[in-house]
């Protein structure tokens, strides 16, 4: 009994001590805030960075791109995150670094004969003016227009690019996660939705019956997103003060290096390397 009691006490004490030791070691703290699009990626990068640099503790908070930019400018966070390019007046006093590129493509079923979509046509589809594939030269079939959940980066980019206000969007269905949208499209020959280019291209390569539509005559692919010739792209930006503190620079260099390319790909973004 006494041995058991001892062991129990020992293990409990050990468990209590271990985390506190680790906490003592973390003397370099970084805080990041901003875009919820970038947050999952930067959190993964931070986890890997922390594993390699035991003395770092990195805190990631979301709150939208505008907040990320404002926080970085006012010094409330060490690094801001923005999933849009900065306006000119926002650039004063800060430095921007492109972490990765994000592009979205309009996606239809592989059986759909339509190959290309213009911005005007996409706008008409998502505002309810086109609802039959015949109107685009396809077969006489009613479209199943699928929108993405509000607040998702895809929805934000699509509506901003096409100049549609969120309440003006007309659709038949809404989907959340990429996989759910893919299943809806593969099960419905008349469906159209929009998805991250990285994810869609990966699915096409593994034989999923979908097609990425050319947009404004430019093929949707990781390559055209990377060289930014594809129109529906946006940069994922990190914002720092002009003069970098040493520990910020260390994490920034790591995030911008090719050591995190697999994480960028894993989140369906496109690395700039």
């Amino acid at each position, binding site marked *: 009994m006494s041995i058991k009691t001892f062991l129990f006490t020992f293990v409990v004490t050990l468990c209590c001590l271990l985390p506190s030791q680790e906490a003592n070691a973390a003397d370099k703290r970084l805080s990041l805030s901003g875009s*919820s699009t970038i947050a999952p990626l930067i959190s993964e990068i931070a986890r890997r960075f922390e594993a390699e640099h035991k003395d770092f503790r990195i805190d990631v908070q*979301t*709150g*939208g791109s505008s*907040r990320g930019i404002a926080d970085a400018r006012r010094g409330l966070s060490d690094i801001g995150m923005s999933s849009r390019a900065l306006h000119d007046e926002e650039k004063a006093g800060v430095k921007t670094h492109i972490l990765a590129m994000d592009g979205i493509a309009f996606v239809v079923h592989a059986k759909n004969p339509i190959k290309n979509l213009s911005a005007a046509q996409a706008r008409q589809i998502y505002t309810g003016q086109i609802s039959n594939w015949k109107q685009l030269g396809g077969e006489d079939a009613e479209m*199943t227009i699928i929108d993405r*959940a*509000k*607040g*998702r*980066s895809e929805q*934000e980019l699509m*509506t*901003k690019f096409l100049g549609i*206000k*969120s*309440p003006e969007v007309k*659709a*038949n*269905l*809404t*989907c*959340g996660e990429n996989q*759910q949208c893919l*299943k*809806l499209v593969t*099960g*419905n020959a008349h469906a159209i939705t929009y998805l991250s280019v990285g994810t869609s291209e990966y699915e096409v390569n593994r034989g999923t019956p979908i097609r990425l539509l050319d947009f404004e005559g430019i093929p949707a692919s990781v390559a055209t997103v990377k060289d930014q010739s594809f129109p529906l792209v946006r940069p994922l930006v990190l914002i720092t003060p002009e003069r970098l503190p040493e520990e910020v620079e260390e994490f920034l260099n790591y995030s911008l290096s090719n050591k995190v390319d697999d994480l960028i790909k894993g989140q369906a973004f496109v690395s700039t390397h």
Partner: protein
Amino acid sequence: MYRLINDRSIAVASTLAIGVASVVVVLIMLFLGKESLPAISEIGLGRLFSDSSWNPESQGDEGLFYIVPMLAGTLAVSTLALAIALPLGLLTAVYTEFYAPRGFRFIMERAVELLAGIPSVVLGMWGLLILVPKIQQIDGHGASVLAGALVLGIMIIPTIALSSRSAIQSVAEKHRMQTTALGLGRSCSVLDVFIPLSRKSIGVGIILAGARAIGETMVVVMVCGNMSVFPQSVFDPVRTLTATIALEMGYSYGAHRGSLFLIGLLLMLSVLTALLLSKLIPGSSLRGEDTI
């Protein structure tokens, strides 16, 4: 030697257990209340019922927070699911208890229990891949009230079947001799004696099943289409309260985030109301103590 498990220790342990459970519920309610405060102060409760649509993040413009279509959606899907599951569940209970041949009964009971254990995401997958394309061939875009109600209905059949069966079983054990003595046949005993006598427990089972349907999230996100509009037919897409939380929680902040917590609070209150309502069902409690 001093016995570790005695009456006193059981009393203490069970008190602790119920204490933990109730404290957790209260803490969750407090948490939901606290997190929804920004929404209550910024947009107010009234706008949830009077805005023109659900567009919580409108790029620069003020957001719109109309949740009535989602309330209607939740109500439509779970009511229809109950309408599907109630007769099937009750008949399953009656069959396994009174009509099934001995060997077959064992298999049927295990099948119903297995159905109860299927993870909702698996049912959702089945609904999305099989049911939705089938419904689309009939009418509409596939993802719809009907798809949600069918999958949810299948999901809650076991809840109704198992609770009804245990209720009918206990009543039947008590009164079988009497009905036999009265010369009542099998169908008459079941329909006119056993089921009426166990109506309260069956009612409680239905309420629990309904609460599960209201709270289910994964399935409805996958097969209901998630459009925040009033459905005009069972083939129309619909969005439930739970689906809104699941779809938007990861991408929300400020008043939008608060409004999602407010929806969560609303869901908990509606389940609580349902549970309290179940106390009002007339009839005897679990054991069927009353006479005919």
